Every structure is written in C-alpha cells, then in structure tokens.
C-alpha cells in the first residue's frame, strides 16, 4: 500500500544541485542534517573561499501538510496540531487558534481565563528565549551557556507540567478559555521562579553578552535595514532590532495585554548583536508582565460555556498573536461546516528566513551561523 520501493532504492537521488559552478567557487550543502540548523533546513551555499556569494534555502524536509490535514479536523481538534508547528511557543500558537475560533463564534472569554492565558504565553516566551539563547551560544562555539539555559527551562517545564500535564506541547487552550484551572501551588512556584530568574539574567549578561569574543562575532554582522525588514515581511525580535514597531501585544492588544504595563524593546542597529539584545531584554519584560499578573488572577470560571460541536458561521476570520519568533496569523475560511474550509497559518519563521540570503551576502561561514542563530528559526514552523 506504500511507495516503499520508490524511497529505498533511490536514496542516491537527493535534490542536491550542489555541483560547482564558476571558477574558484565552492558550493557546499549545509545539509538537512547539520548541528547549526537546529532541524532540517537545507542551505546550498555558494562560496568564494570563505566568503558567501549566495545562500539558497531548500525547504520541505519537515513539510507535514498541516494545512491539508486541518481541513479535515474539527474546530476543537486542529488547535493542538499547531503546538507541533512552532513547538517552542506552543501555548501562544494554541492561543492564536483559540482566539480565531472565539472571534468566529463571538464567545466571551471569562477574565480569569484571559489572565491565565497571558501568564502561560509569557512563561512560554521566557522558556523559548532561554532555549534560543543557549542554542545561539552553542552555535558560536560556547557550549556551557546551553546547560545554564536548560536549568531555567526545566523549572518552567515543571510548572507547566503541574498545571497543563505536558512539558513541551501543552494542549491547554480550548475555544472559550483553558481546559482546567491552574494548580493550587502554581502561583507560589511562579513567584519562586521569578525570584530565581531575576538574578540569573545578570549572570547571563556577563557570561555571554559581556564576552568580547561574542561581541566581535555578532556586532556588525548581518545588518537588516528598517525598509528591508518591512519589505521581507520580518516580524518579532528580528524586525524590532531594525527599529520596526511590530509588537502585536502593543499594536492590536488581545486578552489583558492592554491592562498590563510593559514596554516594547526597539533597537536601531539591525545587526546580529541588536537582535540578540532585543531578545535578552524581552526576557525582562516578560518577567515584568508575569509579576504584575501573578498576584491578581481574578476568580470566576476558567472556561466559557460552548456547544459540544462548534460550527463557525460562513465567512473568513483572521487573528494575530505575538509568538516568541514573531507574528503568527491564523486565517480561517469557513463554509458553515464543522470543519474549516481552508486554514492558512502565516508563519513568522517563513518570512524571517526569506531575509537570510540578503543578510549573509559577503560574510564568512562563521557569520552565517551567527545570523541564523539570531533569526531563531524553528524549521517545522517554516515548512508547516
């Protein structure tokens, strides 16, 4: 029943148009399996000695046809596929889908669920920036920060596991609120984590940010001007590092983001170090948000009453959320049936990746790793 033979015997036939082109030029495959691509991104790089002439990404090595699959899943089921897309901000992805369904059905989410949702989003953002910080340092050759980053990430994972039941792909958001209430000692554990985390951020600064080798490797590398950032459709920390106001929590505030006071981090340099600084400072902002919310979680029920089978009315709905990587757009076109007619996920990584070729021209291979590290690419989010 399966084209097994076709796969096994043509293992030689990989779409590698890696043959050498001009004189002195070397075409190398930073192939689907490579430590720095953190996943299965295949880059065909044309080199002149060590300097890069052209970077050509080949995608699809983790294309799981999510959009085709979602056309046959009900409005409650398709939400949890998205936490497998950008698995580092799975809460925020589910949140985006739930918002879109609620916008379609005009469901009013109770205030307690709104605050819990924002708390979970910000904790996921901290965990995602932690992992990015560790992986970025490892790409530039420093192996130790990775383990410090995972020490904090494990504390957040334990908090999540206690409330949502899972560590990485927490299927916790439901159209209308959250699946069940928070765990009794959730607040205490989050407060302990905030206490511990404040001192740790300064430790990160002098371990990596203050390191002269790290600064030399990232300052002035991969400069993205403001117009280019907008034209390439970059969003999230990548665009904010070039001075573009694109924080969805500020532009189109959803849930309780308008009641919470935090500021949008903007840098103007637009190089890798600016992108790095934006994310590290965002950690502090997320901690500020969690601190303001953790003490005044309003009581009330955590889930609005919804019918068992949800049917969105005929029409199209679009909701935008700010994930750790940028602006995730969920675009549902429904024909009034129980399953969506068409779903499009506007993935932040896809547009950020389109700027990679423009950014890395003329740099060395070592710089390509620094640029890819600061773009914070999650490949299943790009391929969907």
């Amino acid at each position, binding site marked *: 029943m399966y084209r097994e033979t076709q796969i096994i015997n043509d293992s030689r036939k990989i779409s590698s148009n890696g043959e050498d082109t001009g004189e002195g030029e070397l075409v190398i495959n930073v192939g689907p399996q490579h430590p720095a691509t953190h996943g299965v991104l295949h880059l065909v790089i044309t080199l002149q000695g060590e300097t890069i002439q052209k970077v050509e990404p080949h995608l699809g090595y983790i294309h799981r046809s999510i959009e085709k699959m979602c056309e046959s899943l009900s409005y409650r089921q398709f939400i949890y596929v998205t936490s497998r897309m950008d698995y580092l901000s799975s809460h925020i992805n589910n949140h985006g889908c739930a918002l879109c369904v609620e916008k379609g059905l005009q469901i009013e989410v109770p205030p307690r669920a709104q605050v819990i949702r924002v708390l979970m989003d910000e904790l996921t953002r901290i965990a995602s920036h932690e992992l990015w910080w560790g992986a970025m340092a490892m790409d530039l050759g420093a192996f130790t920060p990775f383990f410090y980053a995972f020490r904090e990430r494990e504390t957040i994972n334990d908090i999540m596991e206690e409330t949502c039941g899972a560590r990485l792909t927490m299927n916790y958001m439901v159209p209308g609120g959250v699946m069940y209430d928070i765990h009794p000692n959730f607040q205490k554990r989050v407060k302990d984590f905030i206490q511990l985390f404040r001192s740790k951020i300064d430790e990160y600064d002098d371990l990596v940010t203050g390191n002269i080798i790290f600064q030399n490797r990232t300052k002035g590398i991969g400069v993205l001007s403001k117009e280019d950032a907008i034209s390439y*459709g970059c969003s999230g920390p990548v665009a904010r590092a070039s001075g573009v106001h694109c924080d969805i929590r500020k532009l189109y505030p959803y849930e309780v983001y308008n009641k919470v006071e935090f500021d949008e981090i903007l840098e103007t340099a637009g190089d890798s170090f600016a992108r790095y600084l934006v994310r590290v400072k965002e950690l502090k902002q997320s901690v500020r948000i969690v601190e303001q919310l953790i003490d005044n979680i309003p009581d009330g029920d955590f889930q609005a009453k919804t019918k068992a089978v949800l049917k969105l009315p005929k029409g199209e709905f679009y909701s935008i959320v700010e994930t750790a990587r940028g602006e995730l757009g969920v675009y549902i076109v429904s024909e009034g049936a129980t399953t969506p007619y068409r779903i499009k996920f506007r993935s932040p990584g896809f547009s950020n*990746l389109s700027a990679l070729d423009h950014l890395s021209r003329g740099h060395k291979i070592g710089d390509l790793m620094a640029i890819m590290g600061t773009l914070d690419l999650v490949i299943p989010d790009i391929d969907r």
Partner: protein
Amino acid sequence: MTNEELKQHITAALPTAVFDETGEWLNVQAEAGAWKPFVQWLRNGPLNMDYLFCLTCIDWSATPTGKNVLTMVYHFTSTAARHTIVVKVKLDRTKPEIETVSDIWRTAEFLEREVFELFGVQFLHHPDLRRLILTDDFEGYPLRKDFEDPVNMIKL
C-alpha cells in the same frame, strides 16, 4: 484612515473595485487584468501599504457556487498609518495566472513559490519560480480540493 476614506482612495485608483465590509477589514475585489498598476499604486500611493503579511490562495471548487474559481488573497497593512486591507483576485481554475508582486515586496518571492507549488498558480515575471517545499517528482497540486493521493493519503 477609516474605511470610507480607504474606499474613496481605492475607487479613485481602481474604478472596477468591489467592496465588502462584512469581515474585520475592508475587502477589495480586484481583477487579474489591471493588477500590476493597482499594486504599484497601493505601495507608492497615498495608502503607502508597505507590509504584505499574508499571501495565500483558496480553491472554491468544493463549494456549489465557485465551480471554476481560485481566489488569491493578499493582506496588506501600512506600518506608518496602521490601516489594513484584504485584496482578493478571482482566477480561472483551469489556467490560473497573475502578475508577481515579489519585485515590490521581497517577502512575496517565497510566498508565491509556495502557492505556485501547492495550488499551481503561475506567477508571471517571478525571478525563479521553482519548487520550494515538495519533492521534485511530486505530481499534482496538494492543497486543491480535488487532489487525490491514494498511496499516501489515508482518509480519516
């Protein structure tokens, strides 16, 4: 700018535009014919739409009305003036063709390659319209409603 002002500007530039305000943002119906000048006006004109954040395609063949219709959907917004519009273009399903916008918005280059591969829409004057995601020997356009793949697709 409110929807009214947007509508006046757009009718000035594209008289044949049809508006629909049921959704959250103003929907503009345009034809593939006078597409390129309209898009250039959108970018450089008073609306100053410099951020194309979503470009996708919908195959209406499963619905009773849109038997032979493939709609391209473009979401534009302006980072300066913060207004958003959705532009839709109806294409004939047997031979879908439209001018590329990748020379105006660089993000469209990858988005259009993805739509070309999954829907089969030909983008004219696209710098390198090649496969991006699917395997080289993949036949058919998977996201079309009438796509059948008995080997891989296990129906629920």
